[in-house]
């Protein structure tokens, strides 16, 4: 197969959620001498971009997002070591630590945001639900995160978002991380009150706003 054909098929493997095919095609790309970074960016990521558009248009939903992300991960198990061997690194949009705050066990909204972040090129550390505030902060420090995402569905768990911001401020590391908040109970007014950097009413907005904010930060 020619390079273009392999890249096209890598894109298609994402669109068809074909984990086995993605793995085989990745091996084929390596064997054909295609730059593994090119295989990722011009093959797999193109597929992920289409997945993102389809999700935005209600053509696909959470299960398909998960399957696309899994297909991408399977291909990366082949391509990532090759990229490292070349002494290169895949450009990430950023590193995000994400979870539902303490006391809140709601899961799906958080799952959708983390998957959309992943499929649009972020490295995401999904901490799950009912997450202790120090777990957010320690993980963010450990992975050198660019952003911390705090989800809360209930009005009575909103304070969990404020606690994280207050602790970051108290520890003198508030400016180190972009803090974004979202979830059913949050509003732009609440985000402003607690000093969050970014409020997102849904997953796509979260991805868009965070991408833009990181771009702006890096320009400075």
């Amino acid at each position, binding site marked *: 197969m020619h390079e273009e054909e392999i890249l096209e098929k890598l894109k298609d493997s994402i669109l068809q959620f074909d984990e086995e095919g993605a793995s085989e095609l990745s091996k084929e790309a390596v064997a054909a001498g295609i730059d593994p970074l090119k295989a990722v960016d011009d093959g797999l990521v193109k597929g992920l971009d289409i997945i993102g558009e389809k999700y935005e248009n*209600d053509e*696909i*939903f*959470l299960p398909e997002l998960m*399957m696309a992300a899994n297909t991408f991960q399977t291909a990366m198990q082949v391509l990532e070591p090759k990229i490292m061997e070349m002494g290169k690194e895949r450009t990430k949009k950023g590193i995000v630590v994400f979870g539902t705050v303490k006391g809140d066990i709601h899961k*799906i909204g958080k799952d959708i945001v983390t998957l959309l972040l992943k499929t649009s090129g972020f490295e995401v550390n999904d901490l799950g639900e009912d997450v202790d505030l120090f777990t957010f902060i320690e993980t963010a420090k450990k992975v050198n995160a660019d952003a911390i995402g705090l989800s809360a569905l209930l009005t009575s*768990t909103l*304070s969990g978002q404020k606690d994280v911001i207050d602790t970051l401020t108290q520890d003198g590391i508030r400016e180190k991380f972009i803090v974004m908040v979202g979830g059913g109970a949050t509003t732009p007014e609440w985000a402003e009150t607690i000093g969050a950097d970014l409020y997102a009413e849904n*997953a796509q907005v979260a991805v868009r706003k965070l991408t833009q904010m990181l771009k702006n930060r890096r320009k400075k």
Partner: protein
Amino acid sequence: MLSFYEVIDRAVTGQLMSDQDFYLKHYVPKLQKVIQKYKIKYNPDTPLPSDDALADTVFDAAVEFFSEAGAYCPDTSRVLRFSKEEILQAAREAPPEATFGEGPDRMVMKSRKPDDHSEPWYHLGGGIYTTSEEIFMSVIEGLANIRKANSLSIPTSIRIKGKDARVRSPQEVLATIKSVTMAREACRRAGRPGLPILNGISTATGPISMFAASHPQFGLRPSDGFLVDSLAEMVVDFEALDKVAFYTSIGANIGSTSTPLYGGYNGGSEGNLIATVVYNLLGILVFRGTYHYNAPLHTKLRVSSTRPLLWIIAVANQALHRNAPYPTVNLPYLGGGPGTDCYYYEMAAYHACVVTSGGNILSGHPSVAVEPDTLIPLDHVLNVEAAEAASALTRKEANPVVLKFLEKYESQLKDPPKGYTYQQCYDVESGALINKEYVKNADRIRAALKECGLPVEKSA
């Protein structure tokens, strides 16, 4: 029906599985399989179908899917499975009616039938509104004063001693007790002390606050209703089962509750339709409910009034009331704020779908950004009027009316208008309606609904 002891035993003996495997390898593929097997297909041209065969097929698909997928208990990482026979037996033995309230307000909520011209049960209010302490009682009194109100959903009041109560804190226990006590007192002030409160204890987020506020000293009774919800999707945790254990032990009405998420693990229209029906079966069998709250929701728009969600709530109610006569209360989350045309058209479309399909109504909740103090009694009068008018129509007659309503609001759902607060419409001290512009608009919208084909009559 399978005993509750057997049900909870399955939560500790079922197949072990991670939640990721439950959804990706188990739940989602099985859901896709039944959608294809039963050839269920959403039709945007008919948001309110009158196809009994479709309704029965959906019911069969739901039973099959529930028997294959089961529910997930995160506390034990196990799958609770039930056979088709056990599910069908529960459907046959579903309580067809539930008795609520005391004295003159003691009434029976029924499972209605599609195209049944009986009036639905009018359940008014909403638990998602956070409401300031100073207007809390006036708002509830305003709702209790609505003559046709059969039951109330009381708003949330998490303020205690000037501060917000945190989740599962002692402050939450006290705020919960306070809100229940005040709600009952407000009903008494309206001359309806026996009016049932069906959302149990909206301020409580966990069983401790809920059980504490259920003490008879604070005014709730077994003839009220107590909500037990499963988390999306099909999660049955110990907290929910704890509530079932307690409320069945005191002989109280349990309202099983579900919010299938459009765009989540159920995917789109067809998957959420099946899930909506399955949650009702779960409510009968696992949560031992006497009524069910349906609240399918769009994950991105945070509303229940999109065209696909109208189709879901209509067909799900038809499937249930034709095959498992379990009373349903259907909760519209709406984009438009209180007093906006968007809100009124959305709620009218939703109620038209629900009422003609055999369901009972809960008045509309503005939900895109849940603003505090936005529970406005006159809006809920209009909800009653719209639902009563819908009961005069058949599904076939109501479908074109729903299409006209959709034309009015569908394009606004991505950026819906904000509305009024209680304080902008009512005098806080006397509870009198003082905003003339708001009242005039309500009259105009009544005429507009009528012009679209919903025979609304002014009641207050």
